[in-house]
């Protein structure tokens, strides 16, 4: 994972992510101001009322407003993908591409609606779910030009990194490992329900900044913790040697040396990370 482009290009601290968004917004806002200035210079005959009307409309959106708008459309991608019966991973990739696009582009330069179908179609291609553009445009009730118009810009904005690791496979992995570690102590029908609920929650988590701060398996563990804390804590005790009280701040974890050697994981630290992830997602 550390060799992956997802880790190398798309992992940030909260501070760095804020800085990126602020810079993108500031840059676009400056362009808006400049455009407005040129507009007034080239239209000297405008009345004072007209100037005030234009100025009151041409207000740059704030960084926070940009984020709200992007997340709104990202959510729509998921529901639209559902209506088109696209696989879960395609929808997840489209959301990832869409949100990453707006880490280097402002909604003031390119309205989210203009790249909405582009990201979905491109995600279909990158996830080996190829639909011809004519067929896609027809189902999406748009034009092929609209779908393809910003494809290259999208590719550039993604730094040409197209591989995505989503938490869904990790969920399946933990689903299996929990059965092994808690063998005979967990009801399988209940586990099935947990799996289904977590899968839905993962789709929600992909709309948060947790994807930038945490790894896919950490997000999965956070979702599991939200879904069934008792099950998760029991799993972490048996798997990673977490202390009974699960208190991450209570000194050294009581892992056996074999467990530490076997998985090289500090259980208390992992729990702390997972709880932080849970907070971000919540």
């Amino acid at each position: 994972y550390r060799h992956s482009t997802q880790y190398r290009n798309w992992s940030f601290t909260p501070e760095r992510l804020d800085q990126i968004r602020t810079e993108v917004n500031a840059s676009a806002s400056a362009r808006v101001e400049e455009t407005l200035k040129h507009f007034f210079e080239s239209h000297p005959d405008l009345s004072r009322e007209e100037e005030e009307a234009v100025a009151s409309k041409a207000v740059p959106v704030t960084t926070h407003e940009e984020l709200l708008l992007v997340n709104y459309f990202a959510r729509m991608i998921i529901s639209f993908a559902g209506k088109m019966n696209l696989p879960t991973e395609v929808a997840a990739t489209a959301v990832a591409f869409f949100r990453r696009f707006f880490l280097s582009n402002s909604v003031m330069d390119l309205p989210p609606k203009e790249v909405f179908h582009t990201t979905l179609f491109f995600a279909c291609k990158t996830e080996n779910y190829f639909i011809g553009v004519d067929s896609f445009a027809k189902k999406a009730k748009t034009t092929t030009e609209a779908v393809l118009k910003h494809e290259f810009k999208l590719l550039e904005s993604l730094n040409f990194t197209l591989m995505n690791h989503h938490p869904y496979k990790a969920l399946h992995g933990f689903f299996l490992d929990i059965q092994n570690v808690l063998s005979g102590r967990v009801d399988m029908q209940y586990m099935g329900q947990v799996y289904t609920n977590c899968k839905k929650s993962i789709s929600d988590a992909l709309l948060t900044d947790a994807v930038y701060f945490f790894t896919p398996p950490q997000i999965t563990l956070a979702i599991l913790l939200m879904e069934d804390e008792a099950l998760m804590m029991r799993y972490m005790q048996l798997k990673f040697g977490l202390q009974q009280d699960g208190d991450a701040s209570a000194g050294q974890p009581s892992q056996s040396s074999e467990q530490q050697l076997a998985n090289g994981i500090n259980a208390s630290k992992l729990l702390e990370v997972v709880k932080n992830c849970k907070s971000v997602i919540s």
Partner: protein
Amino acid sequence: DLHKRYVLAESQYDDPFIKSLQTKKEYIASGFRADLVYDRMLTEAFM
């Protein structure tokens, strides 16, 4: 990876979907293997 963080214990897994695929003739003939699927999911979980 000499120190994987998981043990692939196929007999312990109750995965109805994968188990159903293992019995499908076209899957068997294609070379489909459940252990490869499990290994991949576990790798993603512990990467």
